[in-house]
């Protein structure tokens, strides 16, 4: 059987399964379409934080805060490029549009698995979509609990930002020094909290005693150049 056919078959299967799952869900959470800015951003927020049972999970409040600070990294890349830096240096794009900030660099780019296809349509890696569907199934089963609360938070956060540019409090805004290194304030990158992940360049790891680790993620500020 040609590989293309197998791939098509599995895509159709996944699509059918998704429709069936959507029909059966009790709808504790109404998740917007991933082709909209709100849905794409909310999917990213869900994908990046730990849920109960996952490595890195601390608490619901910690995962809420992780979503908040991830959104603010994207916001900082749009509105707060520090003096002597270019947006390209910080975000691998010259665009100040949120969607372009997220999808910069493609599939293996700034946000792994969140990209535009060749025709410019928003796409999410199969693994991220599978994870989201799995979490939605749990969230929509029975009474709303932690899973539903976390997904609801992602949607509300994304919607408030896209519609009204409403932002949560930035816990890294006032950072001026990390150990001996002067920094710009704000976080400009986040990554899974493993020692082998580091964005490199002038990004400075925000340590534990400055709350730089949230829900399995590590946040990074920028070295001050002026």
């Amino acid at each position: 059987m040609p590989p293309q056919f197998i791939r098509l078959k599995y895509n159709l299967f996944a699509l059918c399964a998704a429709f069936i799952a959507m029909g059966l869900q009790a709808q504790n959470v109404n998740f917007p379409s991933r082709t909209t800015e709100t849905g794409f951003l909310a999917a990213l927020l869900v994908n990046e934080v730990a849920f109960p049972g996952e490595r890195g999970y601390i608490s619901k409040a910690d995962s809420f805060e992780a979503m908040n600070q991830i959104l603010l990294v994207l916001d900082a890349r749009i509105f707060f490029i520090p003096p002597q830096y270019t947006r390209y240096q910080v975000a691998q794009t010259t665009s100040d549009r949120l969607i372009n900030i997220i999808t910069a660099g493609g599939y293996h780019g700034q946000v792994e698995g969140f990209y535009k296809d060749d025709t410019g349509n928003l796409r999410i890696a199969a693994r991220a979509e599978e994870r989201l569907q799995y979490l939605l199934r749990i969230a929509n089963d029975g009474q709303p609990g932690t899973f539903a609360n976390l997904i609801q938070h992602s949607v509300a956060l994304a919607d408030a930002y896209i519609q009204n540019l409403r932002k949560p409090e930035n816990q890294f805004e006032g950072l001026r020094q990390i150990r001996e290194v002067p920094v710009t304030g704000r976080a400009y990158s986040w990554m899974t909290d493993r020692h082998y992940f580091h964005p490199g360049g002038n990004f400075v790891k925000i340590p534990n005693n400055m709350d730089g680790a949230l829900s399995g993620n590590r946040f990074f500020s920028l070295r001050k150049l002026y």
Partner: protein
Amino acid sequence: MKYLQVILIFALLTAGQSLCGAKAKAPFDDQYAFELLRYLYRWHMDDAVLSVDPREIEKVEIHYRTIDKALDEGDHSEFLEIIIPVADMLVMLKRADYRIPKLDIQIDNEYFKVVSAHHYRDLKWNPEKYQRLSYDSKRIFDYLYKTRNDKHFPPESTRQRLKEESIRALRAEGYIENFDDPVQQGYIAPISIVSNDLWFYWINGHKLIHFTSDLEHLDSEFWTFAPLGVDIIDLNEEVVVAPAERGNPGAFTKDYAGRILFNCIVHGQKVSDKADTK
């Protein structure tokens, strides 16, 4: 006489708890501390991170302190922060102890597990805030050297599930091009009581597959989280000298990919199977 019996029973119970690594004694009996060091030695340490020549120090120290975190209601998990000065390393440990009502799962780790381990060239910390354990340096490095090839692997039931979930995850991601090879081969990395990570190297597809969760992988519910806690690393596409090189912060360094491969191939267990990927 009855009083003596009660004391004897209590003493036996206490000894039993210690041998089983139960919470009253863990984490830092020597057995756990040595296993933690061995895990870090295997997965995180290298010549470049050692701050001193091991022959020039008398003691290897482990400093630890409890970290209080605001947890969900009913969550009794514990967190420890570890400093290992000889490697300028800061390690976060968690002993998960909470319930997920939605999934009817109780997570109750027997041992503390490594959540993260970071080497800092400029690690600064206040020893007064930590408890200290001190070991003879020669004893530690002799132990690490002697046990460097010791291996523990998951049981057959876990290996079977690892295979099934790997195939599912690879298929979901569209990695199907090597599934028709008549023989499928791979390596499972050794496991440790201080980590919930499972690493597998799939030779045919040149992929590293990694499963993890707050649950121990011997727990059958570990696989409940397989769709959530899986990473696939494409060795042909995602390995670089430095992540900044391609503007891909999620890329793996050649150094770390090499370390995973070393643990899979040199220390690991080879598995092969006729193509059975339907």
